[in-house]
């Protein structure tokens, strides 16, 4: 304490060039001090558990008692874990089912609301964003009631139109589609807002000039807006990809991973193994495998998205 005050009283001495890195740090020590709380907390609750679970993935552990070192046994085991690979496959299927459609809708809505031709666009923006701040558990249960096979409101509606009831939650593919509907409903607004932020950075004159030159609005959308929005679309695509493997509350409240594990996501699987099965070592191995796969998928996506 005293020493700090002593230093405070004396202005820091000029240090000769080239300035050492430590000198830079010293110079900005107050800035570092002020941003340190985040890093301290992150180190305790983020970095340490991440590092610890590397070691954990090489052990068997129930959460209490001694850790039993088993080497790479957990990793060789997970190669044969059909349920885990099914959950990864589910992640890919869900990605295909909802990400392209959701991002396209988000972009179209953002363009429409951003065009200045919609009266009261703020209201629409709020309405579309609203589901994002709705509690997912509550929304999931509401969807579950709406999509019930018999006497669900959706099927009753289809019935009055003369259509057959759809097994929304009772068949492998329909359950995935129903889950996708819930996800799009919940996340469309979030992605739309990000798209709108991106659109603000595109000068209006570009599209206007194209329109004056005789382009149709649809042409302008595909030839001007989408190319310029590439970085924003890439961002939303990457976060949505990570999101579709990491779905949790949506699945837990709507389908519980069923039917026949068709909507089980890797994250739910890892949670079940860790806390239902008391196998924290194996769950850590699953988590790191999951992390590695998502990491490379993201790198691939970013690479591919930047090129062309």
């Amino acid at each position, binding site marked *: 304490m005293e020493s700090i005050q002593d230093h405070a009283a004396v202005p820091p001495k000029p240090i000769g060039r080239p300035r050492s890195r430590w000198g830079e740090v010293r110079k900005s020590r107050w800035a570092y001090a002020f941003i340190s709380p985040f890093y301290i907390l992150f180190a305790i609750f983020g970095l340490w558990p991440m590092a610890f679970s590397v070691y954990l993935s090489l052990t068997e552990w129930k959460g*209490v008692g001694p850790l039993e070192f088993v080497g790479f046994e957990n990793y060789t085991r997970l190669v044969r874990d059909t349920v885990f690979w099914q959950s990864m496959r589910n992640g890919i299927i869900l990605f295909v089912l909802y990400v392209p459609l959701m991002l396209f809708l988000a972009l179209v809505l953002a363009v429409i609301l951003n065009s200045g031709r919609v009266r009261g666009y703020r209201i629409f923006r709020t309405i579309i964003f609203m589901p994002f701040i709705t509690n997912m558990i509550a929304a999931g249960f509401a969807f579950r009631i709406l999509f019930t096979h018999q006497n669900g409101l959706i099927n009753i509606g289809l019935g009055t139109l003369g259509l057959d009831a759809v097994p929304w939650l009772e068949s492998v593919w329909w359950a995935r589609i129903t889950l996708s509907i819930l996800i799009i409903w919940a996340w469309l607004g979030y992605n739309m807002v990000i798209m709108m932020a991106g659109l603000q950075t595109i000068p209006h004159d570009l599209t206007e000039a194209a329109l004056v030159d005789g382009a149709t609005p649809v042409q302008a959308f595909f030839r001007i807006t989408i190319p310029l929005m590439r970085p924003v679309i890439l961002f939303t695509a990457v976060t949505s990809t990570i999101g579709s493997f990491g779905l949790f509350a949506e699945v837990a409240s709507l389908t519980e991973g069923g039917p026949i594990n068709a909507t089980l996501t890797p994250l739910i699987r890892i949670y079940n193994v860790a806390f239902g099965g008391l196998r924290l070592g194996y769950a850590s191995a699953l988590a790191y495998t999951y992390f590695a796969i998502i990491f490379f998928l993201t790198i691939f996506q970013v690479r591919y998205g930047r090129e062309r």
Partner: protein
Amino acid sequence: MNQKLGILVLLLLALALVACGGETASPTEEVAPAAGDTPAAQTEPVEEPEATEGEIAGRLLIWVQQANQDVFEETVLDEFQAQYPDVTIEWVNYPPDEVANQLQVAIQGGTGAPDLAVTEHRSIPRLVELGGLVDLTSQLEPYMANLNAAALDSGSKDGEYYSVPWDVGPVMTFYRRDIFEAAGLASAPEEVSELIGTWDEFLDVCIQIKEETGANCFALNKANNYGDVYFNMLWQQGLGFVDDEGNIAVDSPKHVATLETLAQFWEADVVSDELEWNDGWYAELNASLDAPAVTPVATVTIGSWMGNFLEDWVAADQAGNWGVVPMPAMEAGGVRAANQGGSAFIIPEQSTNKEAAWVFAEFMVLNADNHLAIYEYSDYFPALETVYDAPLFSEPQSYFGDQVGRETVAAVAPQVPEANIYVAENATITGALQTAIQKVGTGAADPAAALEEAAETARLETGLD
């Protein structure tokens, strides 16, 4: 000057941090039964009245679901307090499954457990496995002969007993008298019991009901099946998820035969596709035979606690139309009893008032008079068999068409065999089996293949052989 200001802000920040982190150690924490605050209250047993040797006193922190707290408060809690005035009870409520989940975290974390908890038999072996519960064998000894054997078994490991059984869920077949009559079948309990003596006979009854009335026999969902009917069928045969050596047993020939028996009901197309605990399921249990919109079901085979649910809220419209008989056996003369659900008291090792915790559990459910009062109020079927002698058990119940239903359940409860279903790995194996049943239900696999795959998955996930 700026730097001094900086120091001040930094100090404040540090203080805030310490305050956040140190909240749990705050000695000013009062009796606050909010869920999040319990670890705080737990680690700092302040102002606890001095407990002298042999005296039951001090703070007693109990984790229960709200409904169970109500049961105690509405029945004999006042008498407990009159007898033990120095015990200060604090309640923390969690949703049903959460008591065990939170307790698991507390045991794994080494801190934050209550003095006493009430949770389902199903989740207790997992906690025993973690080594976090007090061994109650010697205290239970005098009561053991009168306690439901299967319930005791669920809370035991290696001959030691860790739970004080409160209630059990003897599996019963509830049936609709009016639908049986409309199908041209007998409807008196004794006759129906005879009629559905085995699952094969039950299938014939189901076919007749479907043909004559159009009603479904019971709910057996295909794609999202929870597996409860199948688990009850396993339990009645004493078949477990693991065998006595602790190896995964779910693909044994008997397990396969059991699933084949169940699958016959799908093949015969006599069951509804409703999933338990959903609106459609409630609706079909409460539907009239001539209801226009909903096809009723004629039976439900489930833990006896369902009788209370039917009467109170699921099927209140059908008062007088329901009856209750023992579940069908797998083969003629076989066991017609299984268990589904039920709960027990457990005392965590971390408990700071184990004496009062035991005394509370003993007072509530090991004393026949108190337990009877609790049963009368709650309808949780007692694991303490001496309660069955009470006059209440020979009273006719108007909801069940004046049948003496409690007597029927009381006759079944002691017959429940021990089965290794409520084991530490229950949650994991249940998941694997649900998938297998769903595959059979949707025609994606036959029982043998589906169970073989489930066994494979279960072995991989549990690490058992």
